[in-house]
């Protein structure tokens, strides 16, 4: 092993069970986690997360916990007015995140939601760091003799993926939420889980 790795450790992937999926031989009932603590891009990922995550979390669509959702629902529903409460989930968010679109989303977020916090050079610096984090996901699984590279999306187990996932969805939602602004009285999202309060017809909602 030492001759192959020569002192540099790479992350080892491992599966996490999906509770709602039965285990069928040959079918995935788990998520693959690429544990970041061994990765040489760990510090880059931590840096990116520290710079942007708290800003992304300040976005009005982000839900912090279920208690906040309860308080929001109580606060926005006018007495006697009919509306629909709905929930939704984004299917396979992390595996669906195109790396270039993720970069665009972060660029957009820094341009539009950071109040000139980042000068142009700093934005560029952060984007380069992100590019390394997204494209330098190498791993070595103990049960095999080969190395692997993740060539698409953002790896689960990398701390910056959360911030990227939230920003990615904010980027995708930005136009839809404006179009339906008059109908949406509440829109909150906990990463890939959406809580929606709809003040319109059921037909419009579905």
């Amino acid at each position, binding site marked *: 092993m030492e001759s*192959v*790795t*020569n*002192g*540099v*450790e*790479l992350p080892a*992937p*491992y*599966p*996490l*069970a*999906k*509770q*709602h999926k*039965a*285990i069928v*031989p*040959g*079918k*995935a*009932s*788990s998520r*693959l986690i690429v544990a970041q603590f061994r990765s*040489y*891009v760990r*510090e*880059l990922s931590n*840096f990116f997360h520290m710079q942007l995550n708290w800003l992304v979390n300040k976005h009005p669509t982000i839900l912090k916990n*279920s*208690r906040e959702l*309860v308080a929001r*629902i*109580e606060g926005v*529903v*006018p*007495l006697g007015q009919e509306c629909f409460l709905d929930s939704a989930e984004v299917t396979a968010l992390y*595996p669906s995140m195109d790396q270039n679109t993720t970069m665009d989303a972060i660029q957009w977020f820094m341009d539009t939601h950071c109040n000139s916090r980042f000068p142009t*050079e*700093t934005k*560029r*610096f952060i984007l*380069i*760091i992100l590019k*390394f984090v997204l494209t*330098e996901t*190498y791993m*070595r*699984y103990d*049960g*095999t003799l*080969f*190395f*692997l*590279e*993740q*060539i*698409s*999306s953002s790896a689960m187990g990398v701390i910056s993926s959360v911030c990227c996932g939230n920003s990615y969805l904010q980027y995708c939602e930005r136009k839809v939420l404006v179009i339906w602004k008059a109908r949406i009285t509440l829109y909150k999202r906990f990463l890939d889980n959406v809580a929606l309060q709809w003040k319109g017809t059921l037909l419009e909602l579905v």
Partner: protein
Amino acid sequence: MYFKGLEKWVNFFRKEQRAKMLNATDMQMARANLPSESYMVNLFHFLAEAGIHLVKTDKNAGSLAWSRELHHEQTMIHLNDANTYQRIEFHSDGSPITARKIFEDFILRFDKEMAECTKDLPGLIIAARKLR
């Protein structure tokens, strides 16, 4: 208040979650065909009973309870997805792949990119050095 019972809802949620966690632990153990009296089951039951939500069955306990074979099978199902993961055996210069060389290639590209984007900007130069 528009929705009756909302104030109590959070507590209901917690009780329900705890019951689900206990149930799910048993289900996972049964699925993995592992003995139901193992240390791991007792540990997760204890944590669930104590209301400790750091160990959620749907996130951790399930796969911790899997057999080694099941771990391997599930890992390989993902790694065989050629759209996401690419096996690499050689570097671009034809030499056999090593973690050391992957790292060294990264350092070369990192230093080059950083040299270009931090030019004459002391704050960014310091940041780049610390991240290296």
